[in-house]
């Protein structure tokens, strides 16, 4: 799966949770889930579940804790897709 495709899918996943439109408009690898997108911290677990469903992978708790930015998420997804 191409990086662009992963990023596009990620963007549509986070869209309903993001409370800051500007963060969505400038959606890039450095985008921070909490600071830039203003996603409620409780909703981060929902983002992870949606990512799991979308990419058919499982994200363990340790990986989830390191998932602060869109780039982090992209790397985790790429890793899991390579080594399921």
């Amino acid at each position, binding site marked *: 799966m191409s990086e662009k495709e992963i990023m596009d899918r990620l963007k549509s996943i986070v869209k*309903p*949770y993001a409370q800051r439109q500007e963060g969505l408009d400038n959606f890039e690898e450095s985008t921070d889930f909490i600071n830039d997108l203003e996603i409620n911290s409780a*909703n*981060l677990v*929902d983002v992870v579940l949606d990512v799991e469903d979308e990419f058919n992978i499982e994200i363990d*708790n340790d990986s989830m804790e390191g998932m602060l930015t869109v780039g982090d998420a992209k790397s985790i997804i790429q890793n899991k897709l390579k080594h399921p």
Partner: protein
Amino acid sequence: MKKRVVITGMGVVAPNAVGLRDFGSALREMKSGIRFFPELEKLKFSCQIGGKPEISEDLLSNYFTPLQLRGLNSSGIVYGVVAGTDAWLDAGLEIQENGSPDWDSGIIFGTGILGVDKFREAIQLIDQGKTRRLGSTSVVQTMASGISAYLGGILGCGNQVTTNSSACTTGTEALLMGFERIQNGKAKRMLVGSCSDHGPYVWGGFDAMRILPSKYNKEPGQASRPMSETASGFVPGSGAGALLLEELDSAIDRGARIYCEVLGGDINSGGQRGEGSMTAANSEAVIRCISKALENSEIEVSDIDVINGHLTATTRDSVEVENWTKALGRTANDFPYINSLKSMTGHCLSAAGSIECVASVLQIYNQYIFGNLNCEDKHPEILDLINPDKIPNNTIEQKINVLAKASFGFGDVNAVAIFKRYKS
């Protein structure tokens, strides 16, 4: 000096109508909201009928954000949020998205059990070892105070925000608790009400107790028969009712429309002593509750024009009417008019008290008494106590000054509220 308390807003989600205007029409027209549910037949329920409000997806999007709607599977929260938000807006209040909370406004919104379908989802995932798949809203959709928490966030209330629970007394109890808070000067506005989930997991326990009617599955509209000789149990319902209580001075300052005044009321328990038990009311306590409600409302027994009873359509209806005759010392033609909303909605359980308070207030505000459905064959034990025309079969236009509303619940708990027509 105790503050006077009035009602300035209402909202309702009932089996026979959703929204205050439609509900008012349904009352006058005596519309039944009882339907047959194939799901209950499939599950081998004895009683395969019930009362379930009809809410469209379109309507939901007016009350919840797309994010709130994701994974929302708690019917009590849906009903409570719609009714509660409606009551707030009906009172002419605005929803401020930003700034400080409204410190003068609080919420007491009760329930019996909340988010049963969501809880079932969670139980199935947990039993499959998939606890991590529950998502973030499993707790808030199933905690009892989920309903007051959702409303508190939507409306931005900064006073007390809580949930009460006292079985079928819940809604009327919430009203009286909010009333006392305003009366004592601790809040200017209290959104009070209650909600109840629908469906087999809520209604099943009652079906198992064999206290629901099983012979009306083909004629659902005739099943709920309070005060009738052929009553054979209560029809389970669901929904929510909400009332915005407000300090009289605050209502006048805002130029708010005033539906009626809450004069007072009483809440007590029969202690499950004497004839009282977990599931039956102690008549001594019921009579005392009525008397105390009149006493602290500073009115006479002769002032009561109408009673909106608890009257569920079980064998206990006669006992309830007898208790009213004893508490008021009024019988035969001297007895007030009496009616039961449950003939149209079934017994909405923890939502019953608040939905019926809304129905009571609509009668005072619009000066009519809705008729009792399915009560052509009035119970002989009741006719020994009061005249048949005191139980109207059809809606009548009638001057009403004072109405008494009663609710009783499992655990032998009682609540009686007294409403009075407001004249500026």
